[in-house]
């Protein structure tokens, strides 16, 4: 038996494909080629939203070849993620990585677009970026790019580390057809919300703003090293912002205790738990910090 570092690496990659492949399923919810999904729980499949072209008659084929009917438990176009509920709990659950993806790391891209078996391609993590605004009206805090080939039907499948743990969810639906990966920690958080509430809440304030520098004197009053904030240049009538007391000329500097330096960060801060709740928003008015309690609306 020939054994060396090359054979060991080759075996490890095949082991990783086999291990993660067990939790990678086929999702048939469109007329063209089926796509892929990941077993998030024994009865829940995490997949890409854009591959669900119908909500009736969704079929999931598991690694062992059994076909199970599924219903949409929740979906979110903004993050291009969806959760399907299987008719019965049957899927071996994916193992999620404990260490996030690193630049240069060897990775496998897996998919199951055909009932013939698992499919894979090899690459390295070539970039970790974000936040970016997705082409579908959402905001992605972080994304992973690789140099591996994404074959047709790979959307919804996992990016896998050499030990077989899932690093993220692959999709070609967020960046004009280019394949990117939603990191597992973000995807799992969204999947959790989708499986419980069916959708992702996106907050609404009713302001228009632009990024401005904060002067040294004002920064002292603010008591932290924050270089920029958002100058309010418009407040819509009857909006949460106007009800909360916002006026043109205020500089928004933090939401719920988290500094906001750019518009994209405000976008990120206004999703999730704050929606529908009175939330403390820190502003500068006349150079002095103030806190407004604003009932965040929903878009």
């Amino acid at each position, binding site marked *: 038996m020939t054994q060396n*570092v090359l054979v060991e690496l080759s075996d490890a990659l*095949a082991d990783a*494909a086999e291990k993660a492949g067990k939790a990678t399923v086929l999702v048939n919810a469109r007329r063209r080629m089926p796509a892929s999904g990941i077993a998030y729980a024994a009865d829940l499949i995490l997949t890409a939203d854009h591959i669900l072209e119908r909500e009736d008659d969704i079929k999931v084929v598991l690694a062992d070849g059994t076909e199970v009917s599924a219903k949409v438990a929740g979906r979110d176009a903004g993050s291009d993620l969806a959760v399907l509920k299987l008719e019965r709990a049957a899927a071996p659950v994916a193992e999620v990585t404990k260490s996030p993806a690193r630049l240069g790391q060897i990775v496998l891209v897996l998919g199951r677009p055909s009932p*013939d078996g698992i*499919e*894979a*391609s090899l690459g390295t993590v070539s970039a970790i970026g974000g936040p970016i605004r997705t082409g579908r009206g959402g905001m992605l805090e972080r994304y992973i790019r690789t140099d591996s080939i994404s074959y047709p039907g790979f959307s919804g499948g996992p990016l896998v580390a050499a030990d077989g743990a899932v690093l993220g969810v692959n999709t070609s639906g967020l960046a004009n057809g280019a394949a990117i990966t939603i990191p597992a920690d973000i995807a799992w958080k969204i999947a959790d919300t989708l499986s419980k509430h069916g959708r992702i809440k996106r907050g609404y304030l009713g302001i228009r703003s632009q990024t401005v520098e904060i002067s040294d004197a004002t920064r002292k009053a603010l008591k932290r090293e924050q270089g920029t904030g958002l100058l309010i240049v418009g407040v819509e009538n009857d909006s949460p912002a106007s009800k909360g007391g916002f006026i043109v000329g205020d500089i928004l500097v933090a939401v719920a205790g988290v500094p906001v330096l750019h518009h994209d960060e405000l976008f990120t801060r206004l999703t999730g738990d704050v929606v529908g709740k009175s939330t403390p928003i820190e502003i500068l008015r006349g150079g002095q910090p103030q806190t407004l309690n604003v009932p965040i609306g929903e878009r």
Partner: protein
Amino acid sequence: MNFNGTFTQVISELVEHVMPALVIVRGHQYGAGAGIVWDANGLILTNNHVVGRHSPVVVLQNDGEYESRLIARDPDVDLALLSIEATGLTPLKPAPVSPRVGEMVFAFGHPWGQRNTVTRGIVSALVHAQNRRGDTLPIVRSDTPLAPGNSGGPLVNAKGEVVGINAMIVGGDQSVSIAASVASDFVKKAIGNGISMNKRAGPVPNDVI
């Protein structure tokens, strides 16, 4: 064969192991493909589509050029078996078992006429294709870059065993190789057709220029 040492060293040892079995299969009219030395006494395996209407010329790694004799060809599995008057060649062995998705593979050939090229990838999928006869043909798909001139060359695993015969390119992305098991069966059948390997009367090799 025993590979030891660092990753880079191991890969160059793999290449040294496989390269002697890689040949050029040159048609008389146009184009050239690759071929694999299948036994020490001059059996050369290649793609059927590489072999034109006449028996092609086989060029070994030592630049020796040989007129070949066509032993068997089958367009339905896209394989052809040639023989040349040469002995003491270094053949490759087919892998004893089917490859696994994810395992590393290396393609050897002459893409775009660039002689003795090696490209790397992994097994992407194990699928079955239907041929014109209606038979299902086991296919090894990989993410290994292939190009015209790779046809007929070997796809080997990390141990240097043949897992496939590189056949064609689909959509530029998925490279396709005919499973080594198909090649083994094809060769067995061809030899079993009453052709004695010792008594074949092939033409003499050309002068080496």
